[in-house]
């Protein structure tokens, strides 16, 4: 089976029903994606499949082979995604364990909705659990990136107009 992960195509010899989560972690050494519940209930294992947020514990490698997978390691490659920067600006993580999944959900949200309302943020992020309770800072970090994008989008719209 061939998987395209973070822009690289990899040959994987596992059973097709293996959850992508374990393929990433146990076979491909991509351990930034975390196990939390195995039932799609906590969001710790969130990755992107063709840009959509998916729980990799609920996605088989056969499902994943159909598209392009992005994991936390590939979100920016160098930690420069605006949300990763905002996470650092707001000192979001406590234990940090759930944050890969939080970032993958948040980045998918902003990719599809660059200026979400607070209610939209809550809804999009409600499937990502954090036992440390970093939610207020996650919300603040997402809002700040959305606000930056809004002002940046304004600027580029002006350039387009000129």
């Amino acid at each position, binding site marked *: 089976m061939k998987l395209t992960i973070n822009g690289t195509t990899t040959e994987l010899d596992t059973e097709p029903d293996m959850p992508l989560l374990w393929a990433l972690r146990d076979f491909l050494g991509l351990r930034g994606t975390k196990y939390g519940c195995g039932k799609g209930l906590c969001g710790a294992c969130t990755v992107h499949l063709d840009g959509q947020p998916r729980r990799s514990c609920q996605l088989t490698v056969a499902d994943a082979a159909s598209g392009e997978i992005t994991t936390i390691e590939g979100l920016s490659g160098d930690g420069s995604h605006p949300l990763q920067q905002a996470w650092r600006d707001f000192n979001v993580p406590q*234990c940090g364990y759930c*944050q890969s999944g939080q970032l993958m959900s948040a980045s998918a949200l902003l990719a599809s909705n660059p200026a979400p309302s607070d209610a939209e943020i809550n809804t999009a992020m*409600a499937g990502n659990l954090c*036992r440390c309770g970093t939610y207020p800072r996650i919300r603040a970090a997402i809002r700040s990136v959305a606000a930056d994008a809004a002002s940046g989008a304004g600027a580029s719209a002006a350039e387009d107009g000129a």
Partner: protein
Amino acid sequence: MSTLTRVSRRRFLQLTGLTATGLVLGAVMPRNRALAGILDEAAGAQLNLFVSVTADGSVEIIAHRSEMGTGIRTSLPQVVADEMEADWHRVKVIQAHADARYGSQNTDGSRSVRDFYHIMRQMGATARALLEQAAALTWQVPVEECTARNHAVYHSGGGSLGFGELAARAAELPVPAPESLRLKDSADFRYIGQSVPIVDLRDMTTGNTTYGIDVHLPGMLYASIERTPWLQGRIASYDSSAALKVKGVLDVVELVAVAGAPGFNPIEGVAVIATNNHSALKGRVALKVNWRKSEHSDHDSGAYLDELAARVEGGTGEVRRQRGDVDAALASAASVVEATYRTPYLAHASMEPPVATARVTDERCEIWACTQTPQATQRAVAEALELDVAAVTVHVTLLGGGFGRKSKPDFSVEAARLASHVGKPVQVVWSREDDIRHDYFHACSAQHFKGALDDTGKVTAWLAREASPPIGSTFDTSVRRNGSGGLSQGFANVPFAVPNLRVESHEAPGHVRIGWLRSVYNIPYAFGVGSFVDELAHAAGVDPAEFWLQLIGEDRFLDFSADGFEYSNYGRDIAEYPFATARTKNVIRELVGSIPWGEKLPPGQGWGLSVVNSFLSDVAVASKVEVRDGRLRVLELHGVIDAGRVVNPDRVHAQMEGGMIFGLSLALNGEITFAGGEAAQSNFHDYPIARMDQVPAVIRSHIVASDAAPTGVGEPPTPPTAPAIANAVFAATGRRIRELPLGKHFSV
């Protein structure tokens, strides 16, 4: 590399000012190459147990406490760096192995800063003194003319040498006498009191951190263990034939429990060992195990709580604290208020479940684990494998949350036993179901209170009775009643100026493994006490904030021994850490001063508050809620903490935010029930923890400015939160909910 082998133990103890913590200085640390990306070996010249400096000028500071989200891997090194005048940007934090020379590494009880703030200052000051002395020798000038400043030592006549240039020479010098150490004036602090970002921040945002579950050794196998569903159950029989047919499954191994109290021992179970997690989990599904029942196989938590409630309502228990004549005061009261409260069992549910990796070779064992207690892990593994403690190396990874669960080394013992059996490295991964069903559960409780009010609304008597299974029952099955350590967590040590007071405890035998969860017995007791004070306030017709202040009474230092109660004071001398009512009252005043307390709210909304002194800190929390059409929403949470001097204010705020949300989570959602001896919950669908959409839009914390000795931070924000929310629900609706979680009564 240089070491401090020449320093005598006595000298070192003098240096650290310690005599009783077991902190000793021995030989060179074992020099295994760091595996799995865990930086746990210093490379530089060692100036003392905690500080090394490399020739290129990196200062390596040992973090000997476990990082589970409090920021301690940053905060304590931050103290060392400040005191030694190191440039934080050139500091590398090295995670310590288990080693008794560091003193306690048991990261719980909200005591890392409390117990090690001064020691870390001394470690920094020692390193600074050695570097200054090395410069003086190099320049052949009196040491008084040499001053360390921001990673270099400067001579008063000009010239400087970097720490890296001085390291080798400094490491050869005798350690200065403790009385010669100069600690910095707090006005000169460079990092203490600053919100230094945590050292793991970048890696945590890029997926590059190593938690227990991320350890990967060559040839490592994975184990998933089916465990007996009830306490003290045993394997009757099992059939591994189908499991062994699953692709990737290599072995099925019985893990027989040692006889006696549960303690830190693994639960009896059958392990499926495979080449990957998926195969191990699939193998477990195919495994058939029949269990032999135990005396706990009919434990029913509902019936048990009914029994405890009947006990506390039924009559006098063992009297633990007493003054005046409560019965007479109740008999002559203008009015008597009474109420019974119940709180359920809880599970820790850290986002990373317990995971440990073991490699056993040639009479040695190496463990990599997300453990709060490296040394207890080392001892437990040594005992299980019949090895010397020195033959067990414990590497401490980051913890994906701990909250007390990872204080128990059972999962490392499982990994060690399995690795020893199969002769290859084994990683034991607890599934979420394993974690929730087989936790060291937080105790449930029943509490009954009676309060006497005179005709002016003043409290003349306080009677409190509790029944809650003791943590001690996990270690000694004959322990059936909470001890003074448990009752010191907000039940017997209430700071009330009431002339007649009696506190009693009843028996509550353990039927599950009772553990400790963030703030421990403070959770149930704060709910009972904090709710009942609110009930009394309303009965007296006094504003609850004002009522708390009156009930606490005059500024004074509390002495519980006068009432016959042996107050634990969280293990610290009460002369050194007095219980000062002025500080407790102050957090209430600062809290109500920071919110529109007493404002007129629309129907269905209300404010509530509560206050708890725990882990030597005072925290008051207020909550604003709305109840509409049976739906409860927490709109705001505000907290004020007095934890003495704080090292890293941002991390204290983070603990306040997170601790209050932890409290909100258990207040709204948290409940583990047992039927037929088995936990009825298994994952986040039936044991929900707070989601983002349950967390209020407004959550604020305030730190009381203080230069008093540092006290606890990680746990104290949690206990006042549930009663603050329940009290707000009463203010909003007139409904007094006397049990947790509130989700049983409202949609949340």
